[in-house]
C-alpha cells in the first residue's frame, strides 16, 4: 500500500536479493531469495552436497524441477556463479527442524548431464524423469530413464523456450489388428 508503488510501470523497486559471495555452506555459495535460503553448487559437487544436507537433517526431497533461462537477462545470481542456460532447482525439507532449503544447479546446454539423487531420495525418481522429458537434462545413474509424461517416441523437450508453444497436428495412429 506504499505510495512509491503508485505507478503501473514501475518495476525497479523491489527487495534486494542478497547475492554477495561471502557466505558458503558445505562449499556452496549461500544466497537468499525473498527470505528463502538458496545454495548454488556446481554440477559436480551437487550430489555430494545433497548427501551432506541429508546428514544435516534435510530428509525430504519435496520438489525437483528444471528451468530454462534462455533470454532471461535479469536473473539473480551471485557473481561467482557462471550462468548457464538450464537450471536444476531442488527444494529440500527438514521435517524435524521445520526448515527448507533450495539448491540451484547450473546445467550447461551442450553437456546437460548431472548425477541422479534418486539413490539418496527415492522420491526424486519421478521428478527427474519429468525434468528429463521437459528439458532434456540427463540424470546419470537413474534407475528408470524412460519418458513419464510424454508419449513414447516424442521428439523435443516442450518446456524449453525454443520449443514452439502452439498446437501441432494430431499424431494419430490407427489401431492395429482391429
Amino acid at each position, binding site marked *: 500500500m506504499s505510495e512509491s508503488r503508485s505507478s503501473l510501470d514501475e518495476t525497479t523497486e523491489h527487495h534486494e536479493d542478497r547475492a554477495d559471495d561471502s557466505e558458503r555452506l558445505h562449499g556452496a555459495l549461500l544466497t537468499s531469495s525473498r527470505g528463502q535460503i538458496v545454495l548454488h553448487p556446481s554440477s559436480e559437487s551437487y550430489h555430494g552436497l545433497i548427501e551432506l544436507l541429508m546428514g544435516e537433517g534435510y530428509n525430504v526431497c519435496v520438489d525437483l524441477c528444471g528451468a530454462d533461462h534462455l533470454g532471461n537477462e535479469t536473473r539473480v545470481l551471485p557473481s561467482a556463479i557462471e550462468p548457464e542456460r538450464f537450471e536444476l532447482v531442488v527444494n529440500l525439507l527438514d521435517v524435524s527442524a521445520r526448515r527448507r532449503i533450495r539448491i540451484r544447479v547450473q546445467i550447461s546446454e551442450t553437456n546437460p548431464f548431472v548425477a541422479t539423487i534418486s539413490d539418496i531420495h527415492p522420491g526424486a525418481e519421478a521428478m527427474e524423469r519429468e525434468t528429463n522429458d521437459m528439458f532434456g537434462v540427463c540424470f546419470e545413474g537413474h534407475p528408470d530413464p524412460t519418458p513419464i509424461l*510424454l508419449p513414447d517416441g516424442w521428439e523435443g523437450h516442450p518446456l524449453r523456450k525454443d520449443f514452439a508453444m*502452439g*498446437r*501441432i497436428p*494430431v499424431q*494419430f*495412429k*490407427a489401431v492395429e489388428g*482391429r
Partner: protein
Amino acid sequence: MPDLSDIKHKLGLGDEGLAGLGHNIITAPIEELVKWARRRSLMPATFGLACCAIEMMATGTAHYDMARYGMETFRASPRQADLMIVAGRVSQKMAPVLRQIYDQMMEPKWVISMGVCASSGGMFNNYAIVQGVDQVVPVDVYAPGCPPGPETLLHAILALHEKIRTGELTQRRDATGRGAEIELGHEHAPDAQPEPVIIRTGGLYE
C-alpha cells in the same frame, strides 16, 4: 410428453392404455420402434478424463439424477456401451486410447463432446492437447462450458435424444456411410466430419 402420445397413437393404443392390448392389434413402423427404444436406453461408457468427469459423475447422482433418462448405468466395458461422453481434455497420449475404445463400442454408437477442451482444445492451445476430439472420433453433440454444469450435460443428452428420435443420425449415416461403419472392411475417415450441432446454454429445450 408430446412424443409419448405420438408413439401411443402410432402404436394404436387409445385411451385404454396398456389394458387395451388384449383386443388390439399394434401396427407400427419398425424403424420408429427401434428409434424409440434406442433413445430410451442409452448406456454411457465411463470415459471420464478430467474436470468434466467430476461433473459427469455429479450428473449421475441424486441431485441431477440421470436415471430419469434410463442412463444411470455407466458401463465400464465399452462393449456394453453405446454412448461415449468424452469428458475432459484429450491429450496426445490419450488420443489413440480413445479411438481404440470408440472402435470397441458396439453399433449404433454416439459421442457427446463434453466441455470446451474436448470440443476445441479450450484454453490449452498447446503441444499436449488434441485440438478437438472430433479429429479422432465423429462427434454428435458438443456441450459448451468449462466445465459444463450438470444442467448443460443434461441438455446435451436431451439434444442427442432428439436427434435419435427424429432419425437425423440414421439419415446422415445413410448418406455418408460414416459413423455407422456397418460394411466390412470399411476404412476410417476421421477427416470427413458429420454435421455438428452446437447447443446453447440457457436456451429452452424445445
